[in-house]
């Protein structure tokens, strides 16, 4: 959808190329994150796509059209544009801000009003409350949402976003990122997204393009960038904790131990206790007949109980969803100081279990660079 071929940018009076021979292809409906330290040319590259910065040499295509053949003003009206400092017009209301491009395109008033309300709903701001506010009456997060809404006003197939969540505190940034991903899963835009935050890149990107001094160093999926960094620069950039970052990418269902051992509420307590003793386990998960999670039982509670397991079941306060990422799950596990996290589906059906072992297995999977393994570490002093 967006295709860059041997794109170069040399600023007048400079002997160094700000962007050097970059080839890039962003398929339709994907988010391509441009990342790198400041001055690496990522913003320059993005701004060449809508020709805010003239291209020195090379070709940029949107669809099958060369942007150089298009009128720059027309071109920019077909591309959504959101920037870090948001750049809402302070003298216009939220409505007029969002309506900027529709007005330039001469939409009629009724259509604009309808679209504005639609977009405010989409970014979860109550239209009746926010429509007539001025930017200075908005919080940073609200302004950022309006900025994104404005960029989407005419439903452009392509969007350029320059650190759109950069100026926001970390908590709200997470919220906005999640929201944006939710929106993106519906609208499927082709997006070029500039950031310097590797976490954001991993979270938002379908593909990540890492730039250094104007050159494209690696262009890969986040997974690949973390597990197979091309060279030392990439390794340094993604950070020594890249194994942990990978937890961001993986979902609970990818890592959990599926179909864990459990019993039903109606099972005989003594039977279950006997089985637990045989297997040397102290706690056991309990489900109802529909396999919905009821809680757990401790061995000492049922060892001399003449009845059903269900009488002694304790509720499970902490569960995770299948599609949550592993970082959240690990964080819950550490916060509540529990040995296992139980994964359930939307109907609370028992699906799997995560424990420290599963985390270690997943995080360590591709990271042991020498390819060796520790195996099970046991006590016992010298091996020989």
């Amino acid at each position, binding site marked *: 959808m967006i295709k860059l071929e041997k794109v170069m940018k040399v600023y007048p009076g400079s002997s160094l190329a700000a962007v050097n021979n970059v080839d890039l292809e962003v398929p339709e409906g994907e988010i391509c994150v441009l990342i790198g330290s400041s001055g690496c040319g990522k913003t320059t590259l993005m701004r060449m796509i809508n020709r805010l910065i003239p291209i020195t040499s090379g070709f940029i295509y949107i669809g099958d059209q060369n942007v150089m053949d298009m009128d720059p003003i027309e071109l920019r009206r077909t591309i959504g544009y959101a920037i870090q400092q948001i750049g809402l017009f*302070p003298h216009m209301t939220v409505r007029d801000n969002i309506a900027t491009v529709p007005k330039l395109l001469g939409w009629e008033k009724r259509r604009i009003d309808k679209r504005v309300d639609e977009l405010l709903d989409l970014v979860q701001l109550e239209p009746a409350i926010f429509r007539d506010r001025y930017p200075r*009456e908005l919080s940073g997060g609200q302004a950022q949402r309006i900025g994104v809404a404005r960029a989407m006003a005419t439903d452009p197939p392509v969007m350029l976003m320059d650190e759109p969540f950069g100026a926001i505190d970390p908590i709200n940034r997470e919220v906005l990122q999640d929201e944006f991903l939710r929106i993106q899963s519906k609208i499927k835009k082709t997006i070029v997204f500039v950031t310097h935050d590797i976490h954001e890149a991993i979270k938002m990107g379908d593909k990540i393009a890492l730039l250094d001094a104007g050159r494209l160093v690696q262009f890969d999926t986040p997974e690949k960038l973390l597990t197979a960094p091309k060279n030392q620069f990439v390794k340094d950039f993604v950070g020594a904790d890249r194994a942990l970052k990978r937890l961001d990418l993986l979902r609970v269902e990818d890592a959990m131990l599926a179909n864990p051992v459990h019993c039903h509420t109606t099972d005989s307590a003594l039977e279950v206790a006997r089985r637990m003793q045989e297997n040397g386990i102290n706690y056991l998960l309990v489900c109802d007949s529909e396999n919905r999670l009821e809680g757990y039982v401790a061995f000492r509670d049922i060892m001399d109980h003449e009845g059903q397991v269900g009488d002694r079941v304790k509720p499970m306060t902490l569960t995770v969803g299948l599609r949550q990422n592993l970082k959240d799950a690990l964080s819950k596990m550490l916060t509540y100081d529990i040995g296992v996290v139980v994964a359930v589906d939307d109907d609370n059906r028992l699906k799997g279990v995560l424990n420290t072992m599963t985390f270690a297995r997943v995080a360590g999977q591709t990271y042991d660079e020498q390819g060796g393994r520790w195996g099970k570490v046991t006590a016992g002093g010298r091996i020989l």
Partner: protein
Amino acid sequence: MKPTSKSGRAWTLVGLLFAFATGAWFESLGFFEFSKNNPEEIWILFLEHLQLVGISSAISISIGVPLGVLLTRGFMRRYREWSLNILGICQTVPSLAVIAIAMTYLGIGKKTAIFALVIYGLLPIIRNCVAGLSGVDPVILDAGRGMGMNPRQLLFKVELPNAMYIILAGIRTSTVINVGTAAMSFLVGGGGLGDLIFSGIAMVDAGYMLAGAVPTAVLAIFMNWLFGRIEKWTVSPGLVYAQTPVSAQ
């Protein structure tokens, strides 16, 4: 509108008392006597004064604002400091001298007066226009450009509305000063309330002089008020220096 505050009401009272005292003093100087006897002459001179101010300010604005805009466009930016300095030097020349210089070329009459007033009123307008436009946050210009505004749309929809407050402040200053300076046009035969002021001074007749000075002052205060109103109508309440509280809060 904000409800009048207690201290505001107190000040209004002080002002009224002061005005009353001044009025009584003027009365004792024979000011009202002259005015009572010659209302028509004062009125004609007042209209003449208004005409001088109106015409010269209108010309100043219609030259100054476009020039200010021009000086902030890319291709003219390099002349900006240079032209502002020249204008600054012009402004340091006393208004009387400007009128005198204008007279040596244009002779005597209204035209000379208006020419001098235009020259003298230009600087605050141009300077504020340049300051206002170059003070517009570059981020919103980038946003506008990135969304596909052409230079004209950028100027009229983004730059001017955002610079409006400062541009208007320049026009306001220029016009209010103009009301005072216009009194000097009497010296080159331009007429106006300066007629009464200067004759009054020459004849050491305070009543005669005040009959010119008071309407001039009132006119200046009125102009100041008028531009305050215009500011309220034209400057968006979304801008932080606008005084109107926004209702939606």
